[in-house]
């Protein structure tokens, strides 16, 4: 019998005056965490990418400064030292943790804020970004332009995520209240991958060509109000969780989207919008959520809906991100607008 691990104390790393927007653990190193943050709560001003080291104590290891707030970050699945960041100015930047100051690549195709990033763990050479401009773009580090530009929603795409089980399948949630599934293998008319060539000055204004929205494989109105986040279950193919401004977390089975999955009686408890949901990488029934009510919660889903397992109440501002440790079961990291990163055992 393996002795139970002693619960690690709540560890806190502070980054004063930087409001955190997202936290992601490295898939290569068990000690590395990346946090995307913005000055002035992301309202205006610069961004900063924090790289944290969990040993011996949780501390900030390195920072990268950006000119606009950062909203999300994604570690490369291909290269252990690389990670991408999503900026408020619509750009996507690729960083190398061994270098200093400047990104190794930057793309600027989104016409508005880039809200989320997700690196595919099946096709490890590509990652996606979702943006306020309603589009989802697929990138590969080697190419100067996006591989695909998917006109996914008519409103802001708060988050998009690759299926961890099916290649080229992705899900997105949007301010239009829908959850959509796209299979990139099915045809659609893409957005131009490059911005229109610079128009001569004083000529007619440039406007995006009217591209119809790509037909989704599946689309469902998931929440009353905007849907802010989603995550694929890591063990049950086609099972997703979504969270929205209606304060609910819902579990869906993409094979039958007419209603939330059997086990998906909405998980209620958050008092304000749910900003982030994350399934445990170790257990099929464990789900963490972060919310504007300044708490993070852990839920256990089951046949009768879900059971609230834990409330993490230590943050003093909106909790914007949460992520499970990929190496140590039951360890959760949360980040918030109070400029603090917490790691603790659930």
């Amino acid at each position, binding site marked *: *019998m393996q002795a139970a691990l002693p619960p690690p104390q709540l560890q806190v790393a502070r980054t004063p005056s930087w*409001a955190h927007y997202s936290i992601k653990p490295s898939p290569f190193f068990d000690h590395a965490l990346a946090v995307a943050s913005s000055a*002035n*709560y*992301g*309202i*205006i*001003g*610069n961004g900063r990418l924090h790289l944290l080291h969990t040993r011996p104590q949780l501390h900030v290891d390195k920072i990268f400064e950006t*000119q*606009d707030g950062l909203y999300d970050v994604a570690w490369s699945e291909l290269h252990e030292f690389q990670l991408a960041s999503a900026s*408020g*100015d*619509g750009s996507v930047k690729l960083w190398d943790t061994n270098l200093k100051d400047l990104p190794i690549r930057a793309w*600027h195709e989104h*016409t*508005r*804020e880039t809200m989320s990033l997700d690196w595919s763990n099946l096709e490890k050479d590509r990652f996606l970004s979702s943006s*306020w*401009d*309603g589009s989802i773009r697929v990138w590969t580090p080697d190419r100067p332009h996006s591989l695909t530009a998917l006109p996914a929603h*008519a*409103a*802001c795409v*708060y988050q998009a995520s690759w299926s961890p089980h099916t290649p080229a399948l992705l899900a997105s949630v949007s*301010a*239009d*209240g829908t959850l959509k599934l796209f299979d990139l293998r099915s045809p659609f008319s893409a957005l131009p991958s490059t*911005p229109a060539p*610079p*128009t001569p*000055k*004083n000529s*007619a*204004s*440039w*406007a*995006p060509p009217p591209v119809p929205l790509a037909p989704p494989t599946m689309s469902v109105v998931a929440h*009353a*109000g*905007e849907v*802010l986040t989603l995550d694929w279950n890591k063990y049950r193919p086609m099972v997703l969780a979504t969270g929205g*401004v*209606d*304060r609910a977390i819902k579990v869906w089975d993409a094979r039958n989207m007419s209603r939330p999955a059997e086990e998906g009686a909405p998980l209620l*408890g958050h*008092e*304000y*919008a749910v*900003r982030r949901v994350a399934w445990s990488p170790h257990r099929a029934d464990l789900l963490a959520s972060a919310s*504007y009510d*300044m708490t993070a919660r852990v839920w256990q889903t089951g046949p009768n809906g879900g059971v609230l397992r834990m409330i993490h109440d230590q943050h*003093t*501002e*909106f909790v914007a991100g949460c992520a499970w440790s990929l190496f140590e079961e039951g360890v959760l990291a949360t980040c918030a*607008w*109070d400029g603090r990163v917490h790691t603790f055992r659930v």
Partner: protein
Amino acid sequence: MSLQALVNGADCGPSNALQGLSKQFERDRGVQQDLFGSGRAGSSRDTFRTQPAALSPEQAQEAARFFDERSASRGAAHAPPQPFDVHALRDALASAAGPATLHSPPPAAAIRSQPLAIQAPSANWATDFLSAGPSAAPVRGALRSEHQLQPQPQPFAGVSAVPQRPYIHSQFQQRVLSPPLQFAARPGPDKGKARADADLWEREFQTLVNGQQPQQRSQACETFNPEGAVDADDLSRTAGLLLDAVQGDASEKFKKSEFLGFMRQLRDRELVVDGDAVVERSQAQAQTPSAGVIGGTTIASHAHVMSEFAGAEGVGDAAWRTATAGSATPRFAAGTAAASNSTTTTHTGLTDARAATESEVRQELQGEEQSEVDRYFAQENAEYTRYWSDAAREQATAPQRSWRDPLSAQWDQLQHDWEMLEATATGIRPVSAYSFQADNPYLHGETSRAATRHHELHLPSDFQAANYASVLEKEAMVQREPRNAEAWYELGVRQQESEREHKAIQALSRAVEIEPDLLPAWMALAVSHSNEGRRDEAYNAIEEWVRRRGAPLVQPLKSEERHERLVDALIGIVRTGPADRVDADVQIALAVLFHTTEDYAKALDCFKTALAVRPEDALLYNRVGATLANSGRSEEALAYYDRALQLAPAYVRAEFNTGIAMINMGRLEDGARHLLDALALQETDGTRHDALGEPAAVTSGQMWDLLKSCVIRMNRMDLASFCDKHDLEGFRASFGPGDPMSV
């Protein structure tokens, strides 16, 4: 962007107040657009990066030069240069603050990227701008005075370094005659107030017109830059909206939140956004004049930040209320905003520093005057609204919030327990030590109401009858007749059989308390005490028993010699008794005594003697078996347990003892099954409520512990956790069905 969510909400209809408000905004913006930007084709809402179309030649030239430098300083910008498109910005504001439909993409995002564009070349830009300004301004002025249809690339107040007086005049008068834009735009509750403000403006204007030229200029600056004030106003207004959205939240965290404090400062305009930084107001005054406009962009951009959040409110009604509350706050802010803005522009835009200062002071005064009155009304209004919305919201959210207090559930439980106790223990206060099970169904039935039988317990027939009655029945009986010693005794014996020594002792103690001459109760008490290893108490009970049998005892007995004296006394009873008849009770008492000193051979003899006269006594069979097992003869013990169980199938202790014996013999799985059966039997004694909710209350921890050590020896770790949780169902399910052929 979910101010929309705040506004449109889940259940907000189109008749929403804030929607109306925003319509008003849009209409007013429309006027502005006519003024400044009607040359644009279509709605700016659809374009992400609007560029003013069809500039007039001279303007185009001007702008080209201007932006060339700008874009050069930006480096290789592949996107068309951002022409400080305030139209788009303002439209964005309108839709950001208002209920843009879900389908039209909120353009606030476009603005979000603008601060960068503006701030990036700030140093170069400022000088460029100043040099470009003087020549550009007259053109613009002229155009404006004609109600030009040409768009302005940059309706920036500070630019008008060389203002055109006639133009200013007309523009200003126009402004005074038609209610000033920012007043009309705001759905302030008091139209009369706006009028009063207008009058004030007029007076001020008069003094200015009659005054020095520079003062006029400064006034003109302000006239030219009404949108600056409006935009900045919107920033604080949105901050106000956000704050109102959470004002119902009474939690400490929200009160202490720095972010909300930040919003509060924005709302109250203690902070303004300047370039890419947020600075305190006093500081901002000394800075560039761009604060106002950029403030406008900020509001749009931050809308997304708070929108997701504010959207959470989702409650249409709440949004409605917020709207009213929100409209009050910026009302007050506007006064200071206008003042601060104009002073700023004046400060930098003018060459005559002295004159500027004069006008600044003047306006400052005016601003204060305005804001004082405004502040009063605004505060009154806001407080009123807050009060009511607080009350309503508290009501609305009260049930949802109940989960938050982890103590409340506990408290409810306590209350419940207390009530149960009150209800069930009426009249039997002295024995509150014995806690009855809650929800005893027998208390409500007629079965136990039958006349109490007088049991000579050790008569086999009676024993069986007594044994079949459940603990609950007995408890009910006791509760009906709390002064009935017999009932207590039977309950005690029943509990004893069910392997609940603690309760048995309580019940038996109560029985002898009520009726000290109830000999079997003393004996049973002695057995229970000895089972619990309380030797002294066991001796006490036997002593009482012996004394009441009439045997002479020297008083008081010293503890060391107690055992011998008691044995002597008992043997004396046996000797004095009739030779042909064995007194089983005396034999049992002796056996118990020997048992306490672990004199198992003698105990066994006594028990067997007793058994000879009471061949149908399950209790005795069990005791013989236990004595055998204790002396290491588990194999033989099994036969006695078996017999006991034949006589009394629900005899938990016999079942338990069987399990122990089997485990001692190494038959782990069989032993576990017997323990399981014992636990199951024990559980049936509990009320359903207890069995579901707190099985630990009715099943004995001792048995679980033994079962756990048993399964651990069987290498069934999975089962051990069920033992910890006392989860009989789970254990049984995981253990699987037993071999029906096994014992």
